[in-house]
């Protein structure tokens, strides 16, 4: 039986490899160079201009291009779309090319207020590897890195030993092996779980030989650094592929430089494996900066008479510090900096409510598009990613779209319903409701859903009460754990991929390896789990790309909304001016306020023919919430009744406005 399965898979593969590209996928994705050519010669409707900018040359001598598309308002704010920053996700680049074509020809209304900057391939070197043969999952750029710190660079990469066009996995029967076949599907492998009485059988290696004779296989292949992890928020040092330091790579640096030169960028949208819309980015990461109470460094605490062990609310500390230094303008930010408080790592609370609303809209949109089938979880924001940087440091609203992940395989509903609770109903319960079920029913429920044995009712209840856990997190964890169990321990992705596309796996074939001896080669094809079936690509993209419009329409938009002139004395007037944000999103974001980006908008009063008795001619504004949020500016003016007053509003990326009013008692509303 096993044999025939193998044979069948082999035959299938043989026929496929004749007719299909190296990836076993007939969809003809454009290579980085082809994309660049396509964008350079992009045809546009009249009134639309499209130009390309070279942001960087990669180590592999490839061009990292940005396409600028503008129409009615070339001076307006801009939306930056960056696709395929990690270079491993063809669908993302394809989406960016399509978006470019749509904006240039069909979506001219999207150019009335904004212009668009589109980077179709953030990591051209890495993405070029997708098109190389044999196919190998490596999407680093071409920077030469001595991964194994020996006396040679890039000297031990993979080899396609069995000449099937794919770099897959070698498994070697070995007493030290930790891997076994999945019982229900011997094409798949899993780690043996000694606690379940399983004994490891195979050692596994990537397909290749030990070129440099150091006992390791493929430990120093070509490349490189993943520029998608090379951005400066929460950058991780001492990893194998994130780079020596943040912005060390031309790709990341080129994009960063462009963004800081183009302060009109009001929003960043990424296309890649991350989705920030299906679920809003997670909160609850640990960091000093997200607490509201702070310790004072010992040497200062002593001087001021505080307890260095105690935590004080920031408001109290601010009052104290202002008093102590005599510097009344000291801001909370300055104090936080002085206290040595680090960077934010959780989305600002004020922003999350906006994100949640957009997420809700997105999920409705996906449902209407008929794409709401259960699928594997997309990636979240990762350390050093462009998404983290653009939100936490650049301070603009940032959304990530992934378009697709493997569908979750259909499963039989098992004993779940016992105890009268399902994982779904758990999710909708409050902590207290769940605790009220009582220990007995909770234990029953845990058992029915294959919770790990350490999860007893007592433990769960105390965790819920102590705030270490909530019903939502618990449901998520149990679901994940259950998935694993349902798949007989197989990797969730392996299992989903097998269900979706069985020929994504190459049957194990025996091979005589020069150093490992008798082995088998097979397993998952590179990139297979990142490729939707080619006949789905069109509809996936055409259905989802229009959500980009929804996002663009939510940008903040400032205007002078109302003025009131009140006579105070002869020739003395009080002028109140309201600036309103008629867009949906706040300006800046709450995180932007903290990270001090973008620069604040300002309302300026033309001083001609006037004397300002109170107030400054130019007044920088603070954060203005969306949906009609306002900030009021007040001046006390001396001037001749009836003279004209010119007001102007400037902002980097939320529009500008002008209004001339007359110095007489009255009100204007717009």
């Amino acid at each position: 039986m096993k044999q025939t399965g193998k044979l069948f898979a082999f035959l299938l593969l043989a026929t496929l490899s004749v007719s299909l590209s190296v990836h076993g996928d007939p969809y003809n994705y454009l290579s980085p160079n082809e994309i660049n050519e396509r964008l350079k010669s992009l045809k546009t409707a009249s009134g639309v201009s499209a130009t390309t900018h070279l942001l960087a040359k990669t180590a592999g001598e490839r061009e990292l291009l940005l396409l600028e598309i503008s129409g009615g308002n070339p001076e307006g704010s801009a939306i930056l779309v960056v696709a395929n920053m990690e270079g491993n996700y063809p669908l993302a680049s394809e989406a960016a090319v399509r978006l470019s074509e749509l904006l240039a020809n069909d979506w001219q209304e999207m150019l009335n207020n904004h212009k668009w900057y589109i980077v179709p391939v953030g990591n051209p070197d890495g993405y070029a590897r997708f098109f190389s043969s044999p196919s190998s999952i490596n999407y680093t750029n071409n920077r030469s890195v001595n991964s194994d710190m020996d006396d040679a660079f890039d000297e031990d990469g993979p080899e396609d030993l069995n000449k099937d066009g794919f770099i897959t996995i070698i498994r070697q029967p070995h007493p030290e092996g930790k891997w076994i076949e999945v019982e229900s599907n011997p094409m798949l492998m899993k780690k043996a779980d000694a606690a379940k009485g399983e004994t490891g059988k195979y050692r596994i290696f990537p397909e290749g030989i030990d070129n440099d004779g150091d006992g390791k296989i493929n430990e120093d292949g070509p490349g490189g650094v993943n520029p998608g992890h090379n951005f400066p928020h929460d950058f991780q040092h001492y990893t194998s592929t994130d780079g020596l330091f943040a912005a060390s790579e031309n790709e990341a640096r080129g994009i960063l430089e462009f963004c800081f030169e183009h302060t009109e960028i009001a929003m960043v949208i990424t296309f890649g494996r991350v989705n920030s819309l299906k679920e809003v980015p997670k909160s609850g990461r640990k960091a000093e900066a997200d607490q509201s109470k702070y310790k004072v460094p010992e040497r200062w605490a002593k001087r001021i008479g505080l307890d260095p062990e105690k935590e004080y609310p920031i408001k109290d500390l601010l009052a104290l510090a202002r008093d102590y230094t005599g510097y009344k303008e000291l801001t909370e930010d300055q104090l936080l900096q002085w206290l040595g408080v680090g960077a934010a790592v959780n989305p600002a609370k004020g922003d999350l409510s906006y994100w949640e609303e957009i997420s809700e809209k997105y999920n409705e949109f996906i449902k209407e598009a008929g794409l709401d089938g259960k699928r594997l979880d997309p990636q979240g924001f990762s350390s050093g990613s462009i998404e983290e940087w653009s939100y936490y440091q650049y301070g603009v609203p940032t959304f990530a779209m992934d378009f697709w992940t493997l569908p979750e395989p259909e499963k039989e509903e098992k004993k779940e319903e016992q105890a009268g609770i399902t994982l779904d109903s758990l999710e909708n319960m409050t902590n207290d409701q769940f605790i009220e079920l009582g220990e007995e029913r909770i234990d029953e429920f845990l058992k029915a859903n294959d919770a790990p044995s350490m999860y007893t009712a007592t433990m769960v209840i105390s965790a819920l009460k102590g705030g270490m856990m909530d019903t939502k997190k618990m449901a998520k964890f149990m679901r994940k754990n259950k998935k694993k169990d349902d798949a007989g321990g197989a990797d969730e992705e392996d299992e989903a991929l097998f269900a979706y596309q069985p020929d994504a796996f190459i049957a194990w074939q025996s091979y005589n390896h020069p150093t490992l001896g008798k082995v088998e080669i097979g397993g998952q094809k590179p990139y297979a789990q990142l490729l939707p079936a080619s006949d789905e690509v069109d509809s996936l993209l055409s259905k989802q790309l229009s959500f980009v419009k929804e996002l663009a329409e939510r940008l903040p938009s400032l205007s002078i909304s109302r003025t009131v002139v009140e006579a105070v004395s002869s020739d003395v007037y009080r002028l109140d001016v309201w600036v309103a944000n008629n867009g949906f999103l706040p300006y800046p974001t709450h995180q932007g306020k903290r990270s001090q980006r973008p620069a604040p908008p300002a309302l300026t009063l033309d001083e001609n023919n006037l004397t300002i008795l109170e107030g400054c001619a130019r007044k920088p504004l603070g954060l203005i919430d969306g949906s009609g949020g306002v900030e009021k500016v007040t001046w006390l003016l001396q001037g001749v009744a009836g003279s004209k007053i010119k007001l102007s509003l400037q902002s980097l990326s939320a529009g500008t406005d002008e209004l001339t009013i007359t110095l007489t008692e009255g009100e204007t509303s717009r």
Partner: protein
Amino acid sequence: MKKLSLIFAIILLCMLATSVSSEKLRLTFDHFYDGQAVIDAVHDLHKAYPNLTTLQSLGQSEEGRDIWQLTINNPKTGKDTEKPGIYVDGSIHGNEIQATEVCLYLVWYLLDSYDSNPVITKLVDSRAFYIIPIVNVDSRWHFFTDAGDYNIGRTGMVPYDDDRDGLLDEDGPDDIDGDGQILRMRIKDPYGNWKSHPDDARVMVRVKDGEQGQWTRLGSEGIDNDGDGQINEDGPGYLDMNRNWGFKWQPPYVQSGAGDFPMSGKVTRAVSSFILSKPNICFNFAFHNSGGLIVRGPGSKLAGMYPPQDVKVYDYLGHEGEKILPGYEYIIGGQDMYTTHGDFDEWMYSNLGIFGFVGELFMSEQERYRLLKKNADKDEEWFDGTPAIEKHKFDDNVNQGQMFSDWKEFDHPVLGKIEIGGWNTFTTRIPPLFMLPEMVHRNASLVIFTAQQAPEVNLELIDITDIGNGLKRVRVRAHNGNAIPSLSAQAVRRDIYRKDMFEITGGSIEVVSGGIISDLHMDRVSPKRNRPEVIFSSVPAFGTCEVQWIVKGSGSATISYSAIKAKNLKLSIKL
């Protein structure tokens, strides 16, 4: 008597002139070198010693000035990158000017003493020195040409919105009285918090509770250029080049002056590229002012703990430094001073595994006016870091009053009748000129002492033993007699470089096994399974690394030691 000394002086001058013509270049340290003078000096040094120096521009600053870098290396004894490298720079903060003089003096002293002082000759022949006399070429240039004060000019010339009003650099200081300096402003105010000191009216002291005030301090000289009710709150810059480096860099809202992203400045980028091209650098000095400090990292908690082996290296050199520089203190930046993110020395150590010190040149305590044996009573009130009265006495009687500009009345366009005065630009953080020669020499001596401690590895055969069956055991020792290891423990634990490589080769030998000897006397070895002929390790400070091979065959063989930060060696043996 006077005449005689004049004649003597003329003769001396003539001798000097002839010595110049005989190609002995003399750099003097009786003045500070302004921007152009530094460029001239490095070119003169290179011209005078073309065989020992190379001079290059690493690129241009924000304002288009060249960043000059000078290498001292004797090519007759090998390429620079084959020797341990010592990197020295100065004035990454443009107002910390005397750091440049230390660099210039070091270069001149090494070159001038070469051939005449065997200690220096040996050092220059066995090390590479990389010197960048001015990192912040723009601001240090402006320090000499523009009206300023000793605190102005730290920044790189990248505009920044310091006061968060959406405008860049719109309200800097102004030399309103046109005296070429930015001094302090004060205004008569009976409700002010300050009064004149009863012993010296130039000094202001804080009033006690209930006491009548006399003055309100108004900060540095300037006007409210942008009409926001504040003076000088958004001056030129602000990229702090010493917060713009790549290790655990933090954005400006966490670390002020950090810049947009790591190495976003043109200069930091150019200098970092240069450093990355010289992996042989094993130690660096970055000179600053002031405080009289020898500072090592970590600069912040984010950098974590330094490995104890490396702390030992730092401590050894730091404590010697405290003796070479009496009064200077060896401290840990983030612990004994304040937290810094993205600073140069953290990048060098934590990211690249290169040891280094920040030298904070000069301390105001050196401006003494008191008996040496016992401490004079200290003034209670401090002004600019020195008991103000003593500083004035020092100025009056040791420096003949060159340091202070007395308070003068001035009609300020906004504030009305005020007074302007204070310590002059070339003071406070900067030593009086008569103290400069000793400062540059002692600090250059710390660099020289440290360079002498760069890893020097000797390779020796321990023994060759016949162990039967045609097998021979070969044991080799690499010994480093200096305080700096061939690789820092940081470099080793973080896999920053290839480790030192011991290799045995020979036409007719087969290497059966190889490994690092963990205990020579007990004959314990950690064997290496694959490629046993090549062993990767490092040689610690004041210590050894011993390796062994078991080989089959006879005849001659070569054992080679190749290191990134130490000289490569070869040893021929007969089996």
